[in-house]
């Protein structure tokens, strides 16, 4: 029962340049980020199975694919 995290950009360098990291399902996005040691406040965008969420307390389900984007320039 797992979910797959896909860090993008410089977030990837925080997980030894791995394209994907597997985490247990049933935990929140915030808890998953803590587990892989990526500071939550550096993640601007979370896309779960293609759907954008701004709520990092969303609970991950089995098989979820989660794209994580770093913060960006803002203009």
């Amino acid at each position: 029962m797992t979910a797959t995290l896909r860090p993008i950009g410089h977030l990837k360098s925080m997980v030894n340049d791995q394209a994907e990291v597997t985490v247990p399902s049933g935990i929140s996005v915030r808890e998953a980020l803590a587990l892989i040691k990526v500071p939550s406040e550096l993640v601007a965008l979370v896309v779960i199975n293609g759907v954008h969420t701004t709520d990092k307390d969303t609970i991950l389900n089995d098989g979820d694919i989660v794209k994580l984007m770093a913060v960006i320039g803002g203009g």
Partner: protein
Amino acid sequence: MNGYGGTILRVNLTTGTITRQPTPEAVARDFIGGRGFGIYFLTSEVPVHADPLGPENKLIISSGPLSGMLAPGGGKCDWTTKSPLTGGYASASMGGHFTAEMKYAGLDSIILEGKSEKPVYLFIDDKKVELRGASAYMGKGAIDVEVSMKKQFGEEFQIAAIGVGGENQVLYASINHDYGREAGRGGVGAVMGSKNLKAIALHGTGSVTVANKDAYVKAGKALYKACKDADNIAEWTRYGTTIVVSWCDEVGALPTRNFQAGSFEGGKTLYAPVMREQIVITDKGCFGCPCPCGKYSNVKKYKTEVEGPEYETIGMLGSGVGLTDISDVAQANLLCDDLGIDTISAGSCISWAMEAFEKGALTLEDTDGIEMRFGNAEAVFAAIKKIAHREGKLGQLLSEGVKRASAKIGKGTEKYAIHIKGMEQSAYATHNATAMLISYMTCDVGAHHNRAWAITYDLQVGRDKVVPEKVARVIWLQNFRPMFDVLGSCRLQWVELGIDRDLYVPLLEAITGVHRSWEDMEKTGERIWNLTRLYWSREIEGFGRDWDQPSPRFYTEPPATGTTAGQITKPEDVQKLLDMYYEQRGWDSTGHIPPETLERLNLKEFSVH
């Protein structure tokens, strides 16, 4: 010269004289283009202590070697002048298609000087250049003028126009192009208005020679491929800069009620997905952009259409003034664009007035009867209109910017006039983000974010840490990021898509025939940065350390709510940051550039001291 239009076009509005000169090779070598050309011509040609709104000031519009070329986002245009808002250097970067058209008309810079007796617009169709009467356009909105001129001359013409705000010389008037792309900051629109120049209509059909065509196509394609292959291009294109609204809210950087806090309890209704769902109808890109970040919106609530709002506008005219409906923010955005005033400065002035009103420093008599309270959308709309028309007490007061307005009102309102060097701070709250704070304090136009967006670095190394590494990071960003404004292309492909910046090196070489590594270009960036500093010292008596101080709000008033509740930068840390910055820049402790640094940067010829 390969990669250049080859001509500097000089338009004297006083005499109506139009002259051309070949683009000086030495200037292209040393300053490359864009904002490099801008500061070179400003420093060299505008007399010391010129009145920013007088005929002696010049408005310098410049393209760069990547403008109009096979470069992602090669549509950046620099507008440099002496700022009527700050009295110092102003350089506003505008996207769209104007700068590409300049290149095709053979123009590297257009230098506007003097002042016309009657309202005119500048008409450029390749070699045909004329000043024409603009009486019929006066009093019209900048977007209305663009629509009219496109109808009259054809869609292929690119238009830059001022609105009523520019005509009335509101000190932060903007210049509109491409229905919502703005040369926004520092009052470039007021300078255009002071010259009685309502608009520029521009069309070019020429080609640009390149040094090595095969290498040019190869390098250009490699850049586009890198953009298209970026993992986040779909999300970036879907939301553009609005992605950061939720993030700023989360980390306490979202300006809330005139920066009284950095998290907004009504913020969720301004987030990117809400905006996309409620009002956005399509994406809109600048010249040659593979990842169009502009969002075009249909605002059903007001039956209007507008490009935007971008993040900065959401921060300043949304959470900054306490609005929670994205449709209201979009409508405020449209009013500012069409009336021709900068959304950032306008938002700051209005939020300052709201705080002053709620604290009793402004009365209904001062506000022409408007209830200037946070969250009052109608008050925001009314204030924008009054500012652009300089109408009534409120319009007059706020049209001069928040520094002058607070000095006039007094009563402690200066403490919450959020500006540096007289320019209103853009949309990042810096209560506890010391790298971003020093970035704002030392920015070369005033409190603007785009030179060194260092707030992420604060989060990476510890937001309250005051360490030399933070200052070094800010200096590196200040030397490097504005080089995109020199080259005439957008930096967002590097910033947002994360493409390898070294991909630009072979492209630039193939275009110009000159090899420049990023290390070389950072040195040019450092030289330009120092030249802008010299300009401030030259123009303002007593310029120095005092001018680099931030609003006291960020070191005396911890927010009561939100992520940064109770957090503050220590006053002594603000000065420590400045000391580190001056030392690393090679400046003295008063913020001036000593002779040895001028010598090292080969800038002695520009020093007036």
